[in-house]
């Protein structure tokens, strides 16, 4: 170990430039701003009403943060998740913040998944542009001026989160959001078994009785959400609320292996509840 001790001594004698402290502080400042922008986007998704207020306040803060093209592979076993497309740009009043994942692994499953993500992204970007154009048309048709229009902005966000991963299995979420006078958000979940080259199902995780197990867990959590005044965000089955899970129920796999069912906004509860999530255990 002597040789290494010598080498380490040399390494530790690399002189530290005086400006390092300033540069770290500068990085902290930039990082805080960038994170706030991200969090603000997230908050804005929570409800259309909240979105309206926050957006009105933040209209003039242009949140374009230089975003070095990230190509950071997430730790992998048989596979990697790469940020395939990553950019932030402002064009024509629309602020885009796009981080699109791509799965790299053997087998045709990942190709299908990547193609599906790509297709969904294209559809969302196109829809966003359409919504925005329609809004602009309506804005001028109702007497808005060019000057007023220029103050308007829309945020379009594509982002993803790795929920969990093992050597052979990965679970991740892709979020598409559009936020202007109304917020719209769609989440997609992908649970891949790369050893077997197929999607993981709730039946794989919970066994034969997955429907009963899931329904019992969800119903118990809905029942528990009722407060002392008898109020809950969740609709009753008669109002179109939760009845049963099926093969199309979206879920992700938590780090401890527990599947978590996710329902779209407004589907089984008031919009203020966001996208309700239920651990199935």
């Amino acid at each position, binding site marked *: *170990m002597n*040789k*290494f001790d*010598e*080498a*380490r001594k*040399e*390494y*530790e*004698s*690399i*002189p*530290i*430039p005086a*400006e*390092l*402290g300033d*540069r*770290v*502080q*500068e*990085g*902290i400042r*930039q*990082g*805080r701003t*960038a*994170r706030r922008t*991200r*969090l603000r986007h997230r908050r804005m998704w929570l409800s259309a009403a909240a979105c309206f207020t926050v957006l009105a306040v933040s209209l003039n803060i242009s949140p374009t943060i230089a975003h*070095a093209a*990230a*190509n*950071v*592979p*997430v*730790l*992998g*076993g048989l596979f*990697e998740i790469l940020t395939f497309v990553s950019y932030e740009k402002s064009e024509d009043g629309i602020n885009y913040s796009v981080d699109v994942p791509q799965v790299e692994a053997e087998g045709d499953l990942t190709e299908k998944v990547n193609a599906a993500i790509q297709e969904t992204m294209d559809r969302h970007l196109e829809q966003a542009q359409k919504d925005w154009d329609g809004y602009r048309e309506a804005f001028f048709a109702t007497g808005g001026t060019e000057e007023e229009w220029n103050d308007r902005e829309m945020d379009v966000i594509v982002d993803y*989160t*790795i929920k969990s991963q093992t*050597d052979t299995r990965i679970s991740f979420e892709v979020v598409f959001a559009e936020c202007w006078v109304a917020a719209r958000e769609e989440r997609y979940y992908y649970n891949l078994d790369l050893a077997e080259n197929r999607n993981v199902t709730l039946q794989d995780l919970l066994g034969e009785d997955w429907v009963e197990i899931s329904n019992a867990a969800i119903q118990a959590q809905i029942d528990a959400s009722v407060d002392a005044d008898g109020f809950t965000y969740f609709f009753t089955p008669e109002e179109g609320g939760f009845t049963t899970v099926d093969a199309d129920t979206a879920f992700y796999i938590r*780090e401890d292996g527990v599947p978590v069912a996710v329902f779209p906004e407004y589907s089984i509860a008031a919009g203020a509840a966001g996208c309700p999530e239920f651990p199935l255990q």
Partner: protein
Amino acid sequence: MSIPAESTLEAYLVAEQAKFYRLAYSYLHHQEDALDAVQTAVCRALERQDSLRDPHAVRTWFYHILVNICLDTLRQRKRIVPLSEWEEAGREDPMPPDGHLARQIDALPAAVGTVIKLRFYEELSLKEISVVTGSNLNTVKSRLYAGLKKLRISMEGAEIE
């Protein structure tokens, strides 16, 4: 998400900044580039801190970011200017000219050099190194052995695990 978590992360980044700089410098051998790499890594860490689920893993999590930025910088540099010219443009070269082993370590391929540096300079465990580099434990081990072999260091003396 909470504010205390943010200030803990910031405190860690400030306290360990000299280590980050040295690691970055050992890749880039260029003062300005190393400063840039540290600043970018700090910025990205704060921005993405919600992806850090286990606060105890902050070191491996941050090194993962930093090492990737250094490797990206090396890749970009290859495309832009010859390395020799770039090194001359650096303000100083603090590696002592007779530092045999340190020189040899610098000359290793990046993937192997990373393992050696993290193991012996930063004293990370092999498991931690596999997290930092995003490769599995066996890959890390074989890179470590390959590196030691190249450096002609008897493995008996070195504590590997």
